[in-house]
């Protein structure tokens, strides 16, 4: 099989220097990651902030050495053959501030194109084409320091596609973009992969909808480990046997969800507090378990404001695998260490 990206027991441990008196600590950012991404695939890495997605991208783009295991991109070892990997890849990160503010959009993009050996005429032709596609052609001669965050991100996205890489890494590409712009960018990403089977795209995101809508396959990653890897529909099918309910109730006022977790037939329950209400998401073994849940609510004097049964989403898959929602995982990261 011809893989664009392959990793074998890939791991990365960061050494974090403490103060003068404290011992250095270790942080495991990635652990035993095995991935096989086919050529022509649009692959998504889905996980909360701090899950290890960016670390994995850094390793695959030759910016960081793995502590254990190996990885290959376009058939080349990312450590031993970095010079063969680099001409074949490019990377765009969400919210990056690359380039120079005093240069115009065209000049910044031209500069990066030169680093990949594109001729000036080819670079300028492609810059115009791509800016047109992302709706930025009227900003060709605007200084990049004068662009809004969203427009700047569009420029960054163009930079990634400009050099026509075999493998493109997009790390949270729609971060900072409004809904409309995100949709345009997603459409363009899909088209780019579809129009040439030699192109592969690895995208990291913590937006479930983005992964669901865009990716051929998705790996769910948390605490440096890949928990599941399949097509979005296959991942959701894992929960097909179960019943998923979205119940909005009166505020829990400090009461936890433990009263529901111990009920028979309740697999997982996560809650999100809103102003004036609390939203509870239940993954139940079967519909029959709902009766007991509603009983428990009545006994606890919790009023139901809204109840919906819905189809499983990737968020539910994540909750099923991790036991908590992505939002809860992000909130629980008391020490946010991102070397």
């Amino acid at each position, binding site marked *: 099989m011809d893989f664009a990206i392959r990793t074998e027991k890939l791991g990365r441990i960061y050494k974090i220097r403490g103060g003068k008196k404290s011992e250095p600590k270790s942080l495991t950012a990635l652990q035993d990651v095995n991935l096989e991404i086919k050529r022509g695939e649009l692959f998504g890495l889905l996980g909360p902030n701090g899950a290890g997605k960016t670390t994995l991208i850094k390793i695959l783009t*030759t910016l960081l050495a793995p502590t254990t295991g190996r990885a290959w991109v376009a058939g080349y070892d990312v450590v031993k053959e970095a010079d063969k990997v680099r*001409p074949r890849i490019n990377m765009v990160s969400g919210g990056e501030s690359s380039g120079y503010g005093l240069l115009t959009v065209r000049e910044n993009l031209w500069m990066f194109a030169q680093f990949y050996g594109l001729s000036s005429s080819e670079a300028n032709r492609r810059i115009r084409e791509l800016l047109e596609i992302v709706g930025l052609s009227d900003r060709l001669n605007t200084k990049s320091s004068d662009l809004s965050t969203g427009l700047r991100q569009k420029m960054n996205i163009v930079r990634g596609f400009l050099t026509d890489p075999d493998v493109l890494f997009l790390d949270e590409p729609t971060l900072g973009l409004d809904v409309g712009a995100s949709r345009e960018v997603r459409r363009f990403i899909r088209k780019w992969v579809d129009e040439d089977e030699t192109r592969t795209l690895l995208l990291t995101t913590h937006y479930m909808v983005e992964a669901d809508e865009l990716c051929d396959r998705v790996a769910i990653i948390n605490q440096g480990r890949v928990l599941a890897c399949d097509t979005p529909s296959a991942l959701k099918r894992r929960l097909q046997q179960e019943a998923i309910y979205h119940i909005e109730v009166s505020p829990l006022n400090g009461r936890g969800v433990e009263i529901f977790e111990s009920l028979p037939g309740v697999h997982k329950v996560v809650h999100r507090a809103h102003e004036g209400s609390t939203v509870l998401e239940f993954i139940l073994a079967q519909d029959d378990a709902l009766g007991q849940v509603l009983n428990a609510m009545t006994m606890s004097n919790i009023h139901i404001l809204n109840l919906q049964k819905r189809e499983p989403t990737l968020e539910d898959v994540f909750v099923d695998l991790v036991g908590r929602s992505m939002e809860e995982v992000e909130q629980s990261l008391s020490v946010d260490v991102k070397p």
Partner: protein
Amino acid sequence: MNEMAARAPGVRRVRKYRGWRLFLQTVVARAYPRVIGAQREKSWMFFDIFLPLLSVAAYVYVYRAIQAPEEYVGFVVVGGAMTAFWLNILWSMSSQLYWEKEQGNLALYIIAPNSMMAILLGMAVGGLFATLLRAVVIMVIGSWLFGVSYSVSSAWQLALVFLITMVALYGMGMMSASVYLLLSREAWHISNLAQEPVYLLSGFYFPIKNLGFWVSMAASIIPLTMGLDALRQLIFPSGAALGVLSVEVEIAILLVLSLVFLVSARWLLVYIERLAIREGRLTESRR
């Protein structure tokens, strides 16, 4: 990659140059922001011309007050012009890779197929171009204000000395850029620390001979020391008498320094890139 794989009609892959063509393209592209920056950000006229001229004026008036030989005024003007290069090395070469890292550019430079030496060379060429303009302006205004006259004894030696001084100086900048990469925010303090003492040790405002032979020799590790001394010997009639070594010897020292700094820059860049990849120091701290 199999190029025969399915491709939508009208889709063609982009041609990319490699080797020397890519190296040169990278140098030009990285020099570009510096050259353009000089035209778009006019604040340099105040900070890089007016302020150095104030320092020059202060020394000129001190020398005139103590009735020092008139050549000293010329020495100060030339030294004042050359400070532009030292400031450029400290703030726009040495610490540049660190700032590029914080800005997110360094990661993009590393993953691109170009040579990092080409990036550094581009920074140096762009910096040299922009700074040369500043130095010339300081020299012209300073000479006009204080009535300095020049008498070039050998034009080709003058051009050669200036050229090798710049090669050695920017070679040193390229070398220290790699080292600064590992220093994170301390880079700022090191640049601050190195700025003023070098004005003294390299004799920016007086003949270095006054510091004595051994101090002058120790200071010659900074290419501007020998460069300035040789330039002054070649453009002032009494320069030779005030020089610490003959111009020929100083040229030889500068050639050695150029070689050492450029080779060290190349070696350090490779070593530090590997180290930074191993330790995870190539990307900005916020990511």
